[in-house]
């Protein structure tokens, strides 16, 4: 399975993910869509982003198994949702909730919007 995991992120897929995570300031890879989240963790993050009034792009990883496996390796993060801000991996649901409470999320988003 280790070989299998490593094979998930081909150079072509990495290039594609590079483009996708930089295509918008805020990109959320999630289960479902912003209007139809299919998991509580994904829903939590969508609601947080909506409440902060930032424009964000969502990508449904349930529709693309190759992307789903590749992303886990790309970010070294095993679960979804995965939030990218300004092309950088920011974290999963628990980190986003904590960062919201501490103000770090708002700060990072403001910085990204102004850059």
């Amino acid at each position, binding site marked *: 399975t280790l070989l299998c995991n490593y094979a998930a992120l081909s150079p072509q897929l990495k290039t594609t993910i590079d483009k996708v995570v930089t295509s918008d300031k805020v990109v959320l890879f999630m289960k479902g869509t912003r209007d139809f989240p299919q998991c509580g963790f994904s829903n939590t993050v969508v609601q947080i982003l909506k409440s902060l009034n930032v424009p964000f792009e969502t990508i449904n990883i349930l529709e693309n198994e190759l992307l789903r496996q590749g992303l886990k390796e790309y970010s070294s993060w095993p679960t979804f949702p995965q939030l990218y801000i300004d092309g950088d991996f920011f*974290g999963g649901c628990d980190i986003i909730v904590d960062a919201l409470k501490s103000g770090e999320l708002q700060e990072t988003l403001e910085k990204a919007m102004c850059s």
Partner: protein
Amino acid sequence: MGVTKEEVESSLTSKLNPIHLEVIDTSGGCGASFEIKIVSGQFEGKRLLERHRIVNAALEKEMQEIHALSIKKALTPEQWKQQQDSENSQATV
């Protein structure tokens, strides 16, 4: 099959040597799902993302079968002590 709470606890204990560990099984029948609160000296000087990465790495084998993992707390022993002190002082008021 899936992963048991005991397996999660034993992997975290052996790899991160926590001074406090809470693993709660939160699966509602849809597969192994856990909530974790952990206090370890290995989090010293690490940001939250790195701390979560350390926990994820310690559970690398289990993650393949875990349906949902929520890391509610990843504290250093010092942060843990501060948190307990403030809870205690609130309790005694």
